[in-house]
């Protein structure tokens, strides 16, 4: 089990400069993820869980301490480390098929192999029949399936998921959690999933990493010693969930009233592009004058 890829995070700190002051998003965090393991990270907003995920994926490299993947230091994004964002971040001008294929843009496969992999991946996430659909034609759940397919299509060693189901309704969310668990079991890909949903963390994780905010630290790592696939109704699962909730409450109750400050990295940017009209309006207000049509 330990022979395959392995993610080792040791003594990692990350500070952001916010309004001239220093904000410690992560403070001396260490975490080892075994190959093939499903690790979930849970915590209140501001605990640095997304920051930790971005560091692990190599999207952010400004940190103290060391992060190693398969024995090599993480110095940037790599195709061996896939990532799925909370918003699916599909490109609206590409079909589902071509969005997924972007994950293979820089992979060394032949055209035919890429086509096969894309088709296989789309089928795996249950989107067969929607290959030619554009993102605006998809529901939120379907769009996130496509996002997961794009993250998986290159068969990464590790897949990082940043609150992938956070924006979905409860029913869709439960379905996708179940399917993600199936995919994980079938494909043997190490997964690290960040969430603020304790049920989700306990249902999916082999281990649940509980983090506490200000500064972001790992409070406790709770093993979930139940075989997959799991029944949501299991009483063992319920007691572990209550245990995790207790830890979370004990870490946040003293400063519960003031909601944690958002981290700079986790700010959601609007995904929608300005259309021609907005663009024109925007021009008008921002860089007057546009030019009137009366001009010749």
């Amino acid at each position, binding site marked *: 089990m330990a022979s395959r890829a392995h993610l080792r995070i040791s003594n990692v700190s990350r500070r952001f400069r916010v309004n001239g002051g220093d904000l410690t998003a992560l403070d001396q965090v260490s975490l080892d993820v075994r190959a093939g393991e499903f690790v979930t990270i849970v915590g209140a907003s501001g605990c640095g869980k997304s920051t930790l995920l971005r560091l692990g994926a190599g*999207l952010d490299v400004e940190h103290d301490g060391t992060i190693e993947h398969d024995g090599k230091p993480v110095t940037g994004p790599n195709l061996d480390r896939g990532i799925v964002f909370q918003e699916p971040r599909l490109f609206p001008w590409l079909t589902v098929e071509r969005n997924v294929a972007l994950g293979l843009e820089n992979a060394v496969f032949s055209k035919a192999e890429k086509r096969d992999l894309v088709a296989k991946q789309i089928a795996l996430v249950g989107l067969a029949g929607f290959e030619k659909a554009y993102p605006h034609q998809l*529901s939120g*759940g379907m769009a996130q399936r496509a996002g997961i397919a794009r993250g998986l299509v290159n068969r990464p060693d590790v897949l990082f998921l940043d609150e992938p189901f956070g924006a979905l309704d409860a029913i869709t969310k439960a379905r996708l959690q179940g399917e993600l668990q*199936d995919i994980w079991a079938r494909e043997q890909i190490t997964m690290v999933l960040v969430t603020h949903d304790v049920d989700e963390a306990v249902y999916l994780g082999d281990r649940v990493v509980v983090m506490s905010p200000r500064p972001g630290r790992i409070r406790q790592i709770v093993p979930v010693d139940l075989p997959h696939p799991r029944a949501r109704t299991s009483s063992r699962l319920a007691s572990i969930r209550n245990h995790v909730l207790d830890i979370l409450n004990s870490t946040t109750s003293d400063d519960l009233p003031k909601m944690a400050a958002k981290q700079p990295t986790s700010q959601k940017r609007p995904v929608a*592009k300005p259309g021609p009209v907005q663009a024109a309006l925007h*021009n008008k207000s921002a860089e007057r004058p546009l030019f009137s049509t009366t001009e010749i």
Partner: protein
Amino acid sequence: MSIISQDVSLAPAPNEVPVARRARTSINRRGFRRFAIALVLPFGLLLAWWIASNQGWLPEQILPSPAYVYSTALEMIASGEIFYHAGVSLRRVVVGFLFGALAGLKLGMAMGLSRRVDDYVRPLFLAFAQIPTLGWIPLLMLIFGIGETLKIIVIAKGALVPMTINTAAGIRGVPESFVEVGHALRFSRLQTLRLIVLPGAAPSIFTGIRYGLTHSWTALVGVELLASSEGLGYLLVWGRQMFWLDVVIVAMIAVGVIGFLMDKGLDVSEVYVQRWNDREGE
């Protein structure tokens, strides 16, 4: 391998049906109604014109009757005169627009991609854009004479300004989160530009093309008014000097119709190129 949990299946749930496959049966009827509505004002105007000339509110030399203008139009079509002048104008506009739009695309991309280029160029550019195209003609005339070069430059300038500003704004408007996806997938700068930035900026660039063509067209007529011996603008001046207001009106209608058709053509091609962009407004 049979590790599929019981409470989920792999097919999308009923609540996940795609939202865009709506019945579109009523769209043709709606399209026809809108077409009919669009004709109300032109016909109203025509009626007002007819009444005005019939009642003799204005002297006939100034406002010829619709019937007279119509027969002049038929004459000019039959003789090919109107096509000759329209052809001259169109050729100028195509050449000038291509120069201006390409230059605007490049400049706008440079400004959109580089903060530094933008900081250097934008203030001067905006001041430059403030000067109406017509205002450039006296100076340009002294430098380039009144030949084709002058016209091409003036037309190109008409396209350059909207093209530059809209391209830059479009590139700036591409969400950071999209660029980050490219980063995570290890896209090179060129891949990011080709696969993310340019497609993302496309709607705005298209707006620039449309504005640019409209401006080129109006600039063309302007420059032909001042310095030309052929083209639709020339026809306008010549008709006025001869006091042939019927010719003037025919030329005006030709300018309007051609401009309208160019814009409409771009609209159609824009919808086609951006099929992904759901403009029906669900």
